[in-house]
């Protein structure tokens, strides 16, 4: 697999989330508190996975960091600057890819650099580099609907990386893929992270995926349906080194510990 290269004009960003809360208005005029008092500090270059049961607010956290939704309480800062809206410095990879179906693979990847009005040779060089990084040179002129799900997600990752983001936000990116494709993409993502050094916040349902990829795993719990706002239950460091063996004892011990944290009943609010 070709290397991405080491030229990185943009530094990875650190993320500071403090006292973050989100509430939605309901039809009856009241409001539902989806998430409250979330604190999270991610140093630059770290790979953080967020796990938790459905409705715990992990996707909301990611969408607020992306700038798609606004916070009801608290502050969110990326590289020291408050988040006010979407920005190409914060690349987002969606579960359903979100590729432009009328653009070819190459044009999808070149989209960001073109919007940034980079010079033509620079756009071309970046596009080629990230096409190669995800191994899709042979499919450069195909359209997204001609590709498998795994290939489409590779395009989506390359498209975001071509913007040279300082933070990569991934919302269950491999959730719709089969197990084989999933594990090969996990390996690729791990390699890409080592080469680019970009900070990554990765939301997933899969505990194994989180333990395989992350430097730290953020376990979230609660959610509106539990009667308790979504919150961070615990942050578990993963000290398993670079090449992780999903069958090893240490790996599975960690998996069990995080699974227990995820499935533990939420304490009922004081009556």
């Amino acid at each position, binding site marked *: 697999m070709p290397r991405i290269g080491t030229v990185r004009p943009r530094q990875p960003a650190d993320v500071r989330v403090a006292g973050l809360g989100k509430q939605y208005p309901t039809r009856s005029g009241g409001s539902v508190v989806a998430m409250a008092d979330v604190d999270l500090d991610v140093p630059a270059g770290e790979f953080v996975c967020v796990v938790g049961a459905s409705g715990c607010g992990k996707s909301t956290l990611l969408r607020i960091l*992306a*700038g798609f939704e606004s916070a009801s309480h608290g502050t969110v800062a990326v590289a020291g600057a408050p988040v006010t809206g979407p*920005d*190409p410095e914060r690349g987002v990879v969606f579960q359903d890819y979100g590729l*432009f179906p*009328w653009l070819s693979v190459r044009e999808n990847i070149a989209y*960001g650099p073109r*919007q940034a009005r980079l010079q033509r040779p620079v756009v071309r060089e970046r596009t080629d580099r990230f096409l190669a990084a995800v191994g899709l040179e042979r499919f450069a002129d195909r*359209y997204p609907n001609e590709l498998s799900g795994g290939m489409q997600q590779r395009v989506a990752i390359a498209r975001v990386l071509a913007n040279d983001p300082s933070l990569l936000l991934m919302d269950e990116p491999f959730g719709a893929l089969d197990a084989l494709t999933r594990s090969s993409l996990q390996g690729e993502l791990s390699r890409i992270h080592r080469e680019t050094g970009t900070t990554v916040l990765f939301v997933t349902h899969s505990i194994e995926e989180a333990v395989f990829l992350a430097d730290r795993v953020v376990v979230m719990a609660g959610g509106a349906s539990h009667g308790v706002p979504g919150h961070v239950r615990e942050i578990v460091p993963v000290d398993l080194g670079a090449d992780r063996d999903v069958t090893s004892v240490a790996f599975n011990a960690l998996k069990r510990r995080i699974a227990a944290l995820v499935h533990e009943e939420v304490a009922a609010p004081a009556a």
Partner: protein
Amino acid sequence: MSSTEAATATGVARPRTPAAPAAPTAGTATGSAPRAPRRRPRLGPLLLALPVPVLVLALWTVGVHQSWELPFGIRMGFLPTPLEVGRRLVDLAAGGIVDDAFSGTLLAHLWASTQRVLAGFALAVALAVPLGVVMGRFSLAFRMLEPTVNLARPVPVTAWAPLTLLIIGYGDASAIFLVFLASFFPVLLNTIAGVRQVPVRLLEAAAMLGTRPAQVLYKVVLPASMRSIASGLRVALGLAWVILVVGETVGISTGLGAMITQARDQSKTDLIVAGMVVIGLCGFVADRLLTGLLALVTRRRPTLT
């Protein structure tokens, strides 16, 4: 089991290309394999489509000669035969057969009608597409305008015709205005629907990739709603030809609708049917030209045509 399946598969495929030696098949097997054996003569669809129109023409001819009476009180004795219509069509186009006021005038009528259709249709597109985009994108505009649009829409364009003749007067402007009205609503409604259906995910993707707000329309909204807009254009262009005949009925001397009206006044049924055939063909050709143009503009990209 898979080997026997493969054997029967090639066994079926072989007889189609008996002349082809085994070597090329084996050589290209790794590349694009299942391309070669699809060279069937193109006679099938034609053979299937031909009998019905032939039968209709035959029954039509017999019916005219025998003066059949059909339901609705259709007296076929008053109809021209297909042959007479064909003669009239040739005379209309080239002259030299019937030799009356209509001989060789087809091009003039055709050109006059085409101009009116193009003018009315183009005006409708120029107004309805931008309005549809605004109504589809901005809910305030939608809520302000949608009730009015849907109140005005059910009024048939044919019902507008008498009023139009009184307030605009006889002539080109009336016909063009009616074509415009007929084309306007299909384009508007399909544009609104297309723009409202643009997936939120694509707008989010565009935003996080750094699309400037002024470019979102051109880069995402229009491409994503292109298919719906295109079908609106096709419906509108079809209706434009329909309403043209009504619009050219009064106070216009050249045009296919005018020609049919004059033919009726002179009881020339063969000319009426010839006019009907020409207008039908016009609608068909216009639709093909439009789809071809759209394919050209969108360069045959997926989801655009």
